[in-house]
């Protein structure tokens, strides 16, 4: 401090602050390096475990399991990683063989111990692995994770429970799908799609019928992707009675039954342009002779997207050829209608050429 003798208090304070900053910097650097060294150590352990277990876990289904080495706690992380990977469709290793390996190394016990560690990664990996093992005894162990604050954890638990015991899982899962708008819809749809559609359809349809207008659109979409037959009557009813544009919009996108077209045709003149557009698209997918005239009217719509989808729908109708489309074009005096037919015909030529 000799350097600062006689210096103003502000200078002394600034110097001390600078020293504190330098000390913090050094600490940060040491922490960074320590973390990296620890990371390297963990990577080495996992790599060794993987090198040891990978050939055994990913061996062809015809290979006998034989006597396996003891699964040490050091190898556990790496083992679970390959175990979960082996269940990915890419590796299609036979489940029976993997189940035998799991039994012989007492994997379930290890996983249940992992489930109670505070480390997020370990818990999630254990939940995923327990889902692959499909032992009914682990259902209750995984169940509490369904209420975890993290959507990742709770969705993994949902998937795992559906794999372990779908009959018990569905009644627990469906109300949560209704409640948890924050669950990724694409992931929920994947989980539902992996399950037996018939098993999920009824409770899902029931929940859809009782859902609020905020929730109903995503429930209809889930139901239509899991079990279109169960969705059809709900879609029909919703198209007849619903006034909420989100529900109508979802129904138009999800409907697959030509018998319901009577509910769609009035929507071609709906005041909301995107409902007109979706109605046109639906008519293109399911339309029957006579609908071309309705679509032709939309070619002069004030909205570009309605004109575009109507033109696409027109050409998608199995009974309308390119020549028919040209004739419809000639019948229009509106330049926008004529342009959009040119556009869509050119697109079709490109598609045919590709």
């Amino acid at each position: 401090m000799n350097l600062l003798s006689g210096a103003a208090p502000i200078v002394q304070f600034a110097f001390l602050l600078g020293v504190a900053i330098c000390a913090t910097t050094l600490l940060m650097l040491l922490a960074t390096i320590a973390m990296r060294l620890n990371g390297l150590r963990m990577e080495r352990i996992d790599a060794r475990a993987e090198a040891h277990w990978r050939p055994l876990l990913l061996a062809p289904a015809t290979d006998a399991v034989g006597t396996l080495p003891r699964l040490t706690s050091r190898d556990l992380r790496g083992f679970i990683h390959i175990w979960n990977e082996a269940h990915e469709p890419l590796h299609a290793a036979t489940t029976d063989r993997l189940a035998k390996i799991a039994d012989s190394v007492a994997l379930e016990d290890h996983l249940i111990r992992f489930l109670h560690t505070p480390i997020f990664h370990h818990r999630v990996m254990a939940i995923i692995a327990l889902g692959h093992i499909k032992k009914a005894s682990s259902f209750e162990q995984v169940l509490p994770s369904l209420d975890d604050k993290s959507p990742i954890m709770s969705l993994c638990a949902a998937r795992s429970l559906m794999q372990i015991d779908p009959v018990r899982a569905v009644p627990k899962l469906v109300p949560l799908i209704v409640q948890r708008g924050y669950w990724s819809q694409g992931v929920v749809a994947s989980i539902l799609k992996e399950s037996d559609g018939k098993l999920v359809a009824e409770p899902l349809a029931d929940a859809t019928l009782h859902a609020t207008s905020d929730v109903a659109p995503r429930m209809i979409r889930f139901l239509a992707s899991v079990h279109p037959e169960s969705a059809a009557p709900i879609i029909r009813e919703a198209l007849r009675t619903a006034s909420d544009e989100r529900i109508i919009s979802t129904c138009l996108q999800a409907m697959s039954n030509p018998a319901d077209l009577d509910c769609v045709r009035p929507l071609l003149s709906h005041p909301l342009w995107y409902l007109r557009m979706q109605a046109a698209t639906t008519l293109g997918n399911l339309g029957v002779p006579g609908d071309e005239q309705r679509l032709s009217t939309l070619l002069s719509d004030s909205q570009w997207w309605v004109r575009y989808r109507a033109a696409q729908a027109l050409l998608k109708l199995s009974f309308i050829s390119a020549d028919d489309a040209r004739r419809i074009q000639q019948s229009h005096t509106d330049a926008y209608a004529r342009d959009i037919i040119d556009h869509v015909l050119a697109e079709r030529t490109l598609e045919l050429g590709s």
Partner: protein
Amino acid sequence: MTSFLAAGLLNLQWVFFAYFILISMAYLALHYVSVVTTLHYMRDNRAEYLPKIMPSYQPPISILIPAFNEEQSIVSSIHSVLRLDYPEFEVVVVNDGSTDATLARVIAEFSLHEFPEAYRQRLPTERIRAIYASPRFPRLRLVDKDNGGKSDALNAGINCIRYPLFCAIDADCILNPGSLARVVRPFLDDSTTVASGGVVRVLNGCTVKNGFLEKVELPRAILPLFQSVEYLRAFLFGRLGWSPINALLVISGAFGVFYKEHVVAVGGYRTDTVGEDMDLVVRLHRKLRREKRPYRITFVPDPICWTEVPSDLKSLRAQRTRWQRGLAESLIPNLRLLFSRRAGAVGLLAFPFMILFELLGPIVEAAGYIGMLTLWLLHMIPLQSFLVFLFLSVGMGILLSTNAIFLERLSFQMYPRVGQQLILFVVAIFENFGYRQLTAIYRLMGLAGWVFSGKARSDWGQIVRDGSWQSPDANDTTGTTAVVAATGVTAASVEKKP
């Protein structure tokens, strides 16, 4: 009078000190928020825990590549983008009246034919000459238009795109195959998301093969090395810190995804600014806040976009003056956001921060150096005071950079070797002796340019590229052109004009 001036000058040290404390606290707070956000993000995204999202739930997306005189690179850029791992997307390349062979090369490479598009002009742009499409590459369209600058090209692209989300990328960026899926995820997780952006990293020193990043290394040249640390600082905690409180004011023009209807509703990209990317985000905030609509503008910490940074002083100067000018042009016309009751964290925190520390920062920094030096030369403060303030300033600079290196270690570990981290630390020290002051001067020049010259026009922000990151044996999978995605491709510099 002299004593009054002397007292004023002496009081300056207090002003600088107070400013220093304020800026340090603000950056450290940002760092703290970034660490917490990163820890959460990494916890959830450390591995692919969840089953793949059903493709029908991934929204289709339009990728916009505005291009001006990119004959060297545009073909490989397009090939790279066409290979992205995403279920449904289209690529719309906008040729902004290039004077070189950009148009001809794209037409020839992708067998494009003129297409009778029913073009609708929702945003005003320069004249569209023609639109092209290809039977071989049905996802690709090319819009050829009169020259109007980058914003104008982006607006023309927006007029053409089909899908509700669009991703604007610079033609000189390298993307990872999963980049699009990553940056779109906030739109799936939260339906109120209107825009999202990701981390931009320094490409110099890396190896790129077939349009994709093959090996990540630190740059060998000193100037890009300084920028590596700077990018970590600016993109990791400079932006990650604002995202959780929905106060992010910048999404890099190099790679950002936007909800088209919101962008059209604010009038698209402004053509009279060089900072069109930031300006757009600020206007989105302003509009959505005014309408009291729930919305999110999100930052994804994944390193999803890699870009070549200037390796010569001339390019660096051009880039930094342009950025600073863009900052001023984005902030000042939207001053109403400042402390606005409706503006929430944007008006109360992010906007004042940007004005006080980012916009005025170079002025205070330069004044600080000059002021302290003057006071010392006039013997108004002792040498020890001057040195202590210098020590404090440099120390804080090193701490912030070390924080960024720490954050990088916490997150994606793109520079995993201990040796690389030590190099970054050494760079974090030395950037405070010359580089930092140099960029402050460039930023001051940018401010001066904004104050003294008239309105700018959105330009193409050209830098000289060395293309050293290209793998020499890399071949395009189509067997047609070469090498790398992205631009700059050759060692030669490509001179661009607005």
